[in-house]
């Protein structure tokens, strides 16, 4: 096994599941919306900590 594949078993190489343009766009939307939701929760957590 090449050393580059040692640590994480070749990371994201999934040749059997070639992504389509549509699935990539969906992935981008999910990732960005998910990040926004997490940071909205963190801002809410600031308010919570202020009120403790």
């Amino acid at each position, binding site marked *: 096994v090449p*050393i*580059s594949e040692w640590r994480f078993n070749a990371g*994201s190489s999934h040749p059997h599941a070639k992504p389509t343009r549509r699935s990539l766009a969906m992935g981008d939307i999910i990732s960005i919306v998910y990040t926004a939701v997490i940071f909205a929760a963190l801002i809410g957590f*600031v308010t919570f900590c202020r009120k*403790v």
Partner: protein
Amino acid sequence: MTLAGWAYIALVFILVLGGAIPLGLYIARILKGEMRFLAPVERGIYAICGIDQKRPMRWQQYTVALLLLSVIHIVLLYAILRLQQYLPFNPQHIGPMSPRLAFNTAASFATNTNWQAYVPEQQISNGAQMFGLAVHMFISAAAGIAVAGAVMRAFTGSGLQSLGNFYVDLTRITLYLLLPVTIVAGLFLVWSGSPQTFAPFATAHTLLGGSQTIAVGPMAMQEAIKEFGTNGGGFVNANSAHPFENPTIWTNLLENWLLLVTGFALPIAFGSMIGRPRQGFALYGAMAIILIAACIGTYAAEAQGNPLHIAAGVSAAPGNMEGKEVRFGIAPSTTFNVGATGTSTGAVDSFTDSYMPLGGAIPMFLMQLGEVTPGGVGSGFYTIVIFALLSVFVAGLMVGRTPEYLGKKVQAKEIKLAMLSVLILTFFILVGGGFSLLTKSGLGSLANAGPHGLSEMLYAWTSATENNGSAMAGISADTPLLDYGLGTAMLFGRFAFMIPVLAIAGSLAAKPKLPESSGTFPTDNALFVALLIGVIIILGGLQFMPADTLGPLAEHFALFSGKTY
């Protein structure tokens, strides 16, 4: 164990603990605004970015500024990773990263974790490494030290409404600390043989007629900030075991020093900021005692060798050399590993998956303690302050005194927030790790069965939540579950911990500073250091004891009865 091994370990600690003192005094001067030799550059940055350097920030404003900057940087890094095929400095024509892996990587580098679920030399262009990842190594490190500075200011006076200005702190730490040290260390690495180039990868032709692609790029500078900023994200997958990232034993020593020194310098800076150096030395002492004990334990575990190898006729003399660089041997490898997990660096020059069960358990336990030995740049300091508050609270309960720390009364609000921050970390590690092991996807990520497999998953969630970033080599991390799950753990482990810490700082800053009396519990003596270590181990570590028992401890006893996984 050898004399040379002990000498190497002693040398690392002498250089780190000795170097931390002047560096800490220097950091205190930066945080107090006394360093001015780059004042024109500083003013230029404020003018371009529209920063009013005299504007004070309350803790809420400081926190929101930190969160906003972080979310903007996550989106920017995400865009770079998704669009790298259109961006310059991509001689290998590397394509875009997948959306979920880009999310994981952006969260990882914005939180100072540097968890790498990708193979850098195959999946990230030189340009994305330098202008995406390396930039975030500076920003996340500076943000951590800025928050530490804000916590220090809380103890400097009475009735304070401001914790400083986040953007000013960020700018000064980058200009006066991170950039100068990175440039000097980077030049030393270049001189030692580490590449710093935008040239395409080299191709070597072997004696047997084959060819081999050798990754090169702007490695040296990234290596320097990778260690000094306790980041840990390697330019290549083999990280600091690669001869280009870590060419000689001298660069190994330098990198070990870089990744540890700031964590120990910050308590010294704290002592200087509040005008009570002994208080800083108490925190520094607690950090050092735990780390030295961990280093001795890991060295002993690895130096004894693997009993199954020895039974098969392998010499016991070199110790357990599986997964270690022959160039370095046991002591430099274990010292580096303990340093990188005692801080939030997560860089490796040897591979934890191949350590003896107890040798691998100690680095994981250091992370589970909350990364306070000495922890990440900034995060180690403010986490140990949380433990110090809990210690005076415990001491107050035992002897019936009103708890106070450095003249600030510690009341129900601060203790609730402190426990909240500790429990957030525990929640993500244990619930996240447990849930992953219940799913088919999670089990499919493991390379080993039994206790070793449990250790791999537990290590991954511990590393992500504590913003360390190292991994046991066996786990396949790029799955939807782990990309999104560990990314979430990194974000909450970083920011949901920082928020209560800044709330505590804001609350304490506003309180009057009480004069010391005969009833004040001293927090600068050996008794307090012992109490603090006890609280760190009991509150920080024992929560994970059942899981650690089923993982590395069970594997240890199984190994000595001849069973491997």
